């Protein structure tokens, strides 16, 4: 049952990375586009960003209900990057909405815009840092070592920062792909396609750099990662998907692009977990395994029932929403 819940958690995280990630990515690339695209951005995000954001809420809820010890450890020792993620979420969401609804003078609007862009960058940067810090295994609970060693040092490493940048590039690429899709739907030509291809290359390059940095700084997880058959299979699978991504680009198949990218992301996540399974979190001198952090069975049962029932309620509504706004239709 715990494994099922872990899979759900991974699924929610993947969906957030793909759907929510694209929304953040749009904010990251907005400064590159110029203000004439503000309308495009608005119409691409506004009906769906809140629904996309909920996947993150789902990740948070599943982890504190299902894996409370993991949640509280991460919350305690990665307090600072988590607060910065939240700051980014608040800034991005509010500024985006305000910009749309506020009939404000241009000065205020440009404030909103920068607020939106900064928030869009801050959140993925620190999300990447958090994931990297969990992988890196330098979290420490020895109180005698002082504030810096406990609460800053475990994530303030080149590996973590690179990982944060990688997530930014990944999100930015998805954002560009999303905008291309919107353009294709309305006008035909695809001016964002070149940008998204470049960002794709950048993301892949950064991914390579992250692996290299991890290897050089002896991240224990990475060694396990390179040895475990499932993880290697995931890597191979993700690589095999790359030509499909390229082909989707060529043809401008945006949905297949998003699905393949999603598949790649989930490969990476599954690979990460599988490498050291059942260990979920490495800390200095000890590990947290699935059995250490999992909630009592009654809780897991009720959580799973809720998730299934919730999915039954949500799925038709979500499909309807996406059909109304995101599937090409004959314009009235």
């Amino acid at each position: 049952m715990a494994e099922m819940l872990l899979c759900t958690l991974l699924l929610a995280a993947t969906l957030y990375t793909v759907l929510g990630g694209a929304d953040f990515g749009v904010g990251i690339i907005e400064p590159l586009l110029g203000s004439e695209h503000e309308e495009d951005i608005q119409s691409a995000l506004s009906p769906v960003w809140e629904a996309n954001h909920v996947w993150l809420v789902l990740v948070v809820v599943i982890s504190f209900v299902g894996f409370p010890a993991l949640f509280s450890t991460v919350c305690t020792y990665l307090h600072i990057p988590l607060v910065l993620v939240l700051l980014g979420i608040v800034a991005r969401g509010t500024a985006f909405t305000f910009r749309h609804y506020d009939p404000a003078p241009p000065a205020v609007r440009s404030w909103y815009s920068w607020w939106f862009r900064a928030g869009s960058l801050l959140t993925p940067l620190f999300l990447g840092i958090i994931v990297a810090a969990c992988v890196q295994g330098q979290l420490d609970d020895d109180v005698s070592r002082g504030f810096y060693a406990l609460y800053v040092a475990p994530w303030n490493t080149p590996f973590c920062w690179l990982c944060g940048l990688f997530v930014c590039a990944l999100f930015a690429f998805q954002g560009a792909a999303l905008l291309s899709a919107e353009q294709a739907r309305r006008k035909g030509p695809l001016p964002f396609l070149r940008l998204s291809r470049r960002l794709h290359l950048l993301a892949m390059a950064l991914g390579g750099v992250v692996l290299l940095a991890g290897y050089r700084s002896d991240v224990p997880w990475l060694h396990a990662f390179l040895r475990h058959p499932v993880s290697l299979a995931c890597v191979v699978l993700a690589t095999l998907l790359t030509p499909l991504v390229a082909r989707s680009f060529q043809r401008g198949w945006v949905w297949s692009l998003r699905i393949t990218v999603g598949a790649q992301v989930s490969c990476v996540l599954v690979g990460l977990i599988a490498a050291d399974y059942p260990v979920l979190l490495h800390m200095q001198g000890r590990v947290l395994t699935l059995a250490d952090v999992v909630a009592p069975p009654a809780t897991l049962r009720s959580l799973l029932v809720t998730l299934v029932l919730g999915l039954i309620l949500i799925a038709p509504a979500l499909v309807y929403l996406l059909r109304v706004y995101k599937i090409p239709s004959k314009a009235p």
Partner: protein
Amino acid sequence: MGTSLGFHIVFACIGMTMPWLMATAQWYYLRTRDPVYRQLAQAWAKGVAVFFAVGAVSGTVLSLELGLLWPKFMVHAGPIIGLPFSWEGTAFFLEAIALGLFLYGWKRLPERVHFASGVAVGVCGVASGILVVAANAWMNSPAGFRWQDGVALDVDPTAAMFNDAWLSQALHMTLAAFVSTSFAAAGLHALRLLARPDLAFHRHGLRIALTFGAVCALLQPLSGDFSAKDVARRQPAKLAAMEAHYHTERDASLVLGGIPDDQTQQVRYALKIPYALSLLAHGDPHAEVTGLDRIPLDERPPTLVCHLAFQLMVGSGTWLALLGCLFLYLRWRRPAALDARSFLRVVALSMPLGFLAVEAGWVVTEVGRQPWIIYGVMKTRDAVSPMPGLVYPLVGSLLVYAILIVVVWLLMVRMVRKIESAQPEPGHG
């Protein structure tokens, strides 16, 4: 945490209530085809969108902040009260979808589907509010587990969700959300009517909002009484603190106003109504009411804060209920008086009272539970994060919220101005 919750509660209330106002206006429009109602529905929908966005992000902040500030609380509480939170996630998801459909579907959706999505926003909003309150009620009335040597055993999430306090708290909070938001919206319309008495837009808005507000404000004392009896039974310390009731006695009298003094155990400058406390707390004028003297010194909540907050809540609530009565009477017998400037002034001045009551009520329920975070099980100081310097993120979040409130306020002002400038000027057109 306190500041975040105090901030979120306002936006959550608005998020629970505004969709209902919006859907009602849309319903009137569908029935009468009067374009003013449509404008009203659209204007309120914009308000809903803004507040929903702020509520969504501040809610996300909260869900993580539970872990950031009270990691040890969450280790135990997460599995037990996870059920309402996961349902809340579902409700919130549906609300986001329905809102997306309503806000951007004015032209794309069939009218009925569109209206239904507006109602769905309201239903989901109220549902998620109730679910979160159920989780809070569990902190006041822990259930669904057995506490042994610092570990929770035999966890039963369903029992935890339907704990003894959830019904009374959910009822009280839902009504409070409707009262506060409706009166705030009505106050805003009244304020603008004082400047522009000609706008039908504001007149319609005032009537719809006040009707909601008045009905709920009249129901609220009943639910308050239900809550009080519940608290008297389950949390005598909280009741004693909010009523500033120091000495256990029969025939206890109700203390109105005044400043409680813990040193002398007296309440200065207060008005006392004999037998009333016994009657209100236990339904019998001679019943014994537990005073603070029965509570160990280190388990007493701060009396002054609880008592004053409680008085503030009841005072504002009573005032709004009276105002609601007046409105219903005028609407029934003298509709013309609803446009009188004096009436509008009173409504405008009462604008913040509902939210004042909500905040005060929240202070009562949270501070009244101190020093416990889970009543009778875990103390707040044992749950707090070990990270030093927690005060900095707290001050930081306070600052962010202050900025957000100012920005939202300025935004509302500009939105109202824009809507008004789009209205036809009678006598000029």
